[in-house]
């Protein structure tokens, strides 16, 4: 390599330029050069950086024999990974045949799906025979929202807590579960099947809250429960649990 020290900024514009893959090289004085990736890869250094894909923010002092920059420039490699994260996608197929393409990282909020992917069984679509499209779309919505929040702050934020001062998602979660009962129970079943702890905790807590502070008759009305006690039996059971009514 040449003796002058230079540094190179590589940004991966993969996402924006699907057809001819381009990369943008940014010089230290801020000038950007968009080039075909194949051209940039004439530089072995840049080639390796692109191929690795796991680079972190580095300032490299390189001696570069450049066909790109006309003057000696300093080149800094920066990690643009964050902008281009989540390009890996996976397709989930609901029980009624609808396909949903989601970012892999979002899908992996589900431990069940995570294991399928890690086991290498997710090449085509992941069929989810226990989840309808209506429910699946809501589940995906939940996962997306919580994944975003995790990206911006501590991962623990995404788990359900009822303390709204620590969990900025509480309001969103509360709105999320304002659905009819059947949907709510289907969400519980889906969260259980897909093993999404935050969603399961949220939905179960919602149902538990619906049971609190109500009389037995109100509970029956809420959940369409038939009272199958005879009057004598009901009196007996009431007596047994009288302490709970005082």
């Amino acid at each position, binding site marked *: 390599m040449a003796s002058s020290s230079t540094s190179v900024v590589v940004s991966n514009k993969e996402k924006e330029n699907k057809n001819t893959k381009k990369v943008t090289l940014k010089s230290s004085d801020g000038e950007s050069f968009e080039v075909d990736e194949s051209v940039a890869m004439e530089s072995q250094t840049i080639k390796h950086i692109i191929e690795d894909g796991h680079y972190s923010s580095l300032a490299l002092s390189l001696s570069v024999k450049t066909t790109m920059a006309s003057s000696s420039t300093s080149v800094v490699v920066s990690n643009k990974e964050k902008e281009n994260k989540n390009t890996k996608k996976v397709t989930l197929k609901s029980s009624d045949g609808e396909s949903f393409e989601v970012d892999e990282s979002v899908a992996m909020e589900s431990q069940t799906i995570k294991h399928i992917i890690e086991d290498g069984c997710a090449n085509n679509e992941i069929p989810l025979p226990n989840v309808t499209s209506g429910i699946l779309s809501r589940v995906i919505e939940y996962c997306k929202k919580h994944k975003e929040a995790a990206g911006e702050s501590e991962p623990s934020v995404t788990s359900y807590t009822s303390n709204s001062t620590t969990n900025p998602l509480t309001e969103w979660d509360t709105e999320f579960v304002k659905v009819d009962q059947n949907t709510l*129970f289907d969400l519980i079943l889906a969260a*259980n099947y897909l093993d999404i702890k935050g969603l399961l905790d949220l939905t*179960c807590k919602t149902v538990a809250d619906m*049971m609190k502070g109500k009389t037995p008759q109100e509970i029956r009305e809420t959940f369409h429960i038939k009272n*199958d006690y005879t009057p004598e039996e009901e009196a*007996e059971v009431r007596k047994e*649990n*009288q302490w709970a009514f005082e």
Partner: protein
Amino acid sequence: MLSCKSLLSQTINKKRKKNKSKNKNKNSSTRFSKKHNLVSKKQNYEEEEEDCEEGFNFKTSAAPSHTHGVQPLGNLYINPGSINSRNTGLGNLQTLTDELVLDILGLLGGTHLGVLATVSKSFYVFTNHEPLWRNLVLENMNAGFLYNGSWKSTYVAACYPSFDVSSVDVSGLRVRDFYSDYLFQSWLCANLEMKPEWLQRDNIIRRKGISVEDFVLNFEEPNKPVLLEGCLDNWVALQNWDRDYLLQLCGDVQFAVGPVDMKLQEYFRYADQVMEERPLYLFDPKFAEKVPKLGSEYEVPVYFREDLFGVLGNERPDYRWIIMGPAGSGSSFHIDPNSTSAWNAVIRGSKKWILFPPDVVPPGVHPSPDGAEVACPVSIIEWFMNFYGATKNWEKKPIECICKAGEVIFVPNGWWHLVINLEESIAITQNFVSRRNLLNVLDFLKHPNANALVSGTRDRVNLHDKFKNAIETSFPGTVDQLVQKAEEKKAQQKQSFWDSVTDSKVGAFKFSF
């Protein structure tokens, strides 16, 4: 005098079946069946003379049992036209599984559960599920509680003292047409005895009066389990330790019982009454500190006296426990902590042991890849029901035995083991490190995941360095000598002893109570 509850008696229950009317549905040809076996003529409990080889026997119990008439789902299928009151009584909730319903109920307090019980028969059955009340007691009353026949009763008596719990008919309401596999299985496991065929195999090597050299050469070095007889003969504990003596000595001392502390007398009271799938187990690592007399009435058998963790003095991890538990209590499959070996001496009662070598994961057990977690989803008795039979046809069978009072079992490092008390038992167990497994212990402690894997001490990450330094101080050059010896051995053999014990890194100390 210990309580008479036992898992050993085989012929008890044929006569008692008339009291177990909960098992019978008088209106139909309902059978009690094994979970996935719909109909089997052999399992007809209504015919008391029938040989019950295939069926189950139930525990002797002085405590009345809660009977609500829950039946397994299979019975519903052989009863065409029958409705399941589980569903009608749950309303919109019926689409949820039993476990999910219980998860939701688990978020509620005692009062809510009491109110819910009156909503429908289905809710009655669900809200009376004992584990719910057990959790409420253990979470809210960890300063101590007086067990009162059932967990629900214990909770109500403590939180609502003005309510007269004894006025309630203990057996409660009987519910018809309620079918649920989960609840049924839960009840079944709480009430089962051990089947005779689970206790038959006894293939451990037994020795009496062997020399320490013999033990080291034939068992400790090759890492093989052995049952030793006659080495507790001089233990004062063997003469003295029965309930009366212990109550007198330390009845009001708090001992560690699973997640809580309990006074010994409270624990015995619980043990006498309880009938559940996973009874609480008294397992205290500080018994000798709490009651020095207990520590003085036993001594480490001669074979196990070399215990190198001793160089750490007070900073050594937990190493000795007194263990007491009613029939049915025990430990599900696990590997002992820190790659140590162990001995377990039964002072009263008897224990069934099943051991698998380090490289054989027992059926039904799922260690995580790093070994920090061991998932054994079923209780001990359910493990026997569902997985024990699988081992019958294996070429390499597990090592099994029943260890009785006065006997000591040596559990080599890295071996999986499961223990169940067949009757109320009292035992002492210690974990130790000798020169034979010093190197593996050091390796284990060096493990990058030390924080999760190392147990019995608060100072997990530094334990390796502390221990190594202490060994060097007390026994300079030992580690180097051992390393050299091991390398020589490795060069000689194709597969050395050390290769086989490195597998002991899989799995870690994890009891489920």
